[in-house]
């Protein structure tokens, strides 16, 4: 093992406990200050345990559904676009996709809400559209960086193109793909706060209620919980990423 590996491991481990500790600290601070204050009836209603749990649940559901949808769409699409016959199509798709990333997420949401109405599915669609790009791009990049000699060796020993994809290319692309999925996940946690504008609930609606009723503690609680959620999800994703990375590479 080289020193560089050790350094990488050390920082990886450092991260792996720092994130959940910060997240837990944030949650503790939020609840401690809620408990320490006299809450008026609106605050009490919005910040009750069940209410918060319900918002967090909605939020997670949005993130989970849209991330799964992103993976199911972007990974096969990325694989398809990086097959030899499709290379010509791959580059422009990636360019268009990159340009799409620059459109503000709130813009997509509002646009879709105006066009198609509101609801959880509208929120899911916009989250998917938004988080598709990192996964698509990383799938294509991950496949492209696989050593040509390995593909050659695989074909040379009689593997079909499909067998090479499954046994050689995809496993070697997994680390890069996972990094893309992690980015998508974090994007989704953030962007899902905007889902309140399509009436899909989530922590965003806590924040929105706080703004509408002019209750700063509610706004703060909603925002801080979102941050804590993002940190926890990132940490979990990191743990999965390390666990799923193929050995030997």
């Amino acid at each position, binding site marked *: 093992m080289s020193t560089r590996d050790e350094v990488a491991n050390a920082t990886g481990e450092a991260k792996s406990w720092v994130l959940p500790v910060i997240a837990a600290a944030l949650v503790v601070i939020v609840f401690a200050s809620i408990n320490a204050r006299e809450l008026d009836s609106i605050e009490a209603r919005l910040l009750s345990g069940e209410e918060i749990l319900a918002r967090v649940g909605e939020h997670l559901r949005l993130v989970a559904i849209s991330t799964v949808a992103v993976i199911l769409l972007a990974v096969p699409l990325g694989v398809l676009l990086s097959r030899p016959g499709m290379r010509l199509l791959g580059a422009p798709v990636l360019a268009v996709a990159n340009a799409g990333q620059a459109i503000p997420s709130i813009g997509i949401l509002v646009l879709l809400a105006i066009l198609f109405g509101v609801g959880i599915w509208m929120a899911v669609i916009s989250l998917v559209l938004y988080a598709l790009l990192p996964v698509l791009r990383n799938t294509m990049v991950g496949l492209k960086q696989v050593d040509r000699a390995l593909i050659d*060796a695989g074909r040379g*020993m*009689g*593997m079909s193109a499909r067998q090479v994809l499954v*046994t*050689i290319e995809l496993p070697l692309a997994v680390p890069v793909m996972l990094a893309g999925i992690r980015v998508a996940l974090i994007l989704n946690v953030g962007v899902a706060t905007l889902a309140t504008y399509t009436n899909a609930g989530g922590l965003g609606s806590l924040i929105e209620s706080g703004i509408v009723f002019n209750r700063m503690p509610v706004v703060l609680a909603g925002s801080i919980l979102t941050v804590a959620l993002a940190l926890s999800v990132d940490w979990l994703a990191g743990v999965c990423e390390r666990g799923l990375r193929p050995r*030997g590479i």
Partner: protein
Amino acid sequence: MSDVMIRLDEVHKRYDGQAGDAVAPLSMEIREGEFVVFVGPSGCGKTTTLRMINRMVEPSGGRIWIDGRDVTDVDPDELRKHIGYVIQQVGLIPHLTVAANVGLVPKLLGWQRDRIEARTAELLDLVGLDPAAFGGRYPKQLSGGQQQRVGVARALAADPPVMLMDEPFGAIDPITRARLQEEFLALQRRIRKTIVFVTHDVDEALRLGDRVAVFGEGSRLVQFDTPLGILTNPADDYVRDFLGSGAAVRRLGLLNVGDLRKPEPADRLPLRVSSGDSVHSVLERMLRDGADRVIIEGESTEDDRELTLRELLMAGSAR
């Protein structure tokens, strides 16, 4: 053992969008159990020719038979499972263990698990790697030489009659390379595969090949003969150039003293050399021309000195 195993008939290749042939029409026969080495400068089409044999490259024309069967009649994936293929980059799959890498082709062929395990252990043994110590390792935990041994074991996995090897030892340090060549020759004496081996290194070609095919530009086959035949009678100046200096000394490496006959006595002209020539090059030229005396030229004719081969050897000996 003189059955033809691989036959090329006017095989040629022109890559899309290129003006000239990467491989000009080429015909040759390779016998069963024969170790044939393709040698030639980089870019002369050796790899392309090799890859046409297992259809990694589709020929633009001509036909190829392996063991009497036209390869274009066989599904390429099926064909390749029965032809060993070793490349310079080795191409071990990094996320599979050494044992899994060696067992890849048997697995593709649908062998039972314990049969694969037994075969894998046998092959690792064959290439000099302890299966217990190495089977569970990942490729990056091996040295370059060990990786290439695994590459050879993997190519042998399904016991293919034909092995194609593209500069397999090219990326390995000279000492390890020499050892691998030695071991591989010993291995070949036991397994008697039909081998087509590509290299750009003349020494490697002459050391390994039963027969050596010397290619010129555009895969023009210039000479196809035994190493001794090539060193003794180079077909033309191109081959002579390609062999470089030292051919006469190298040729001695292929002869055993028992092979020699007493020569007819003959009058031999002395070789004229200048005082700056190295003893090595002078001996090389004496050997080539069969001279037994040299005249070392001085400033003027009076300063010329003469040395016999015997005196040269005594003066040059380390004692």
